[in-house]
């Protein structure tokens, strides 16, 4: 019961974990390359969700300082790190897509199993 209570308290983290596993499942079982790239993005997004929610506290506001007001600000560090993380994920995605474009040129398919079949026939 204690475990269940902990999970309900931390439902943001639980959603992130479920998303992570969905991404992993898609990456392992689907043979379509574009789906693999999407799965990679889902995994990254789940980790970002988890990281950003670490920085949140109930009732806190965005960390843009306003003079003279007594405001409880959120932790700026996770948000700042995730900005970096998102750009990194975008770069990897761009490169993976460019590889898929070229693989499609050679085989006329984006499906990994079909590519293996084509190669075994040659």
């Amino acid at each position, binding site marked *: 019961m204690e475990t269940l209570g902990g999970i309900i308290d931390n439902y943001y983290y639980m959603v992130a974990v479920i998303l992570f596993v969905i991404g992993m499942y898609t990456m392992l079982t689907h043979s379509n390359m574009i789906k693999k790239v999407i799965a990679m993005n889902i995994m990254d997004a789940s980790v970002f969700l988890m990281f950003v929610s670490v920085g949140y*506290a109930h009732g806190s506001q965005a960390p843009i*300082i306003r003079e003279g007001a007594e405001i409880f600000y959120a932790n700026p560090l996770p948000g700042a*790190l995730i900005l970096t993380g998102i750009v990194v994920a975008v770069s990897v995605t761009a490169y993976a897509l460019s590889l898929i474009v070229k693989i499609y040129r050679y085989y006329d398919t984006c499906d990994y199993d079909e590519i293996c079949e084509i190669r075994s026939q040659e």
Partner: protein
Amino acid sequence: MFYILFAIFLIIVTLFLRLIIGVEPRTLVTLYLLGFIIFLLSFTVAEMPTFGSPDNPAFNEVPRRYLEQGVAETGAVNIVSSVIIDYRAFDTLGEATVLFVAIAAVIATLRSH
């Protein structure tokens, strides 16, 4: 007792998935593996510092200094900006390099084929 019940439950689920829905054995193995991972991770989640609580370990002196002295030390009102471009500027240099290397990789790949 609990474990026996759980094992019977698993066997029934396996038979249901395999015989009635017709899931491939490979997918079945992957599903169980991922179910196991979810199981372990949810135990971890249950023990994590409570979400949204202001006395989490993450709210230590690091963000406090950013929030209290960030404006004076970096001159930027947006603390996220002052973290990414001043306190942790090398990360952002790495990030610009990631963008650059992505471009270089894309150009190299597309031009060579």
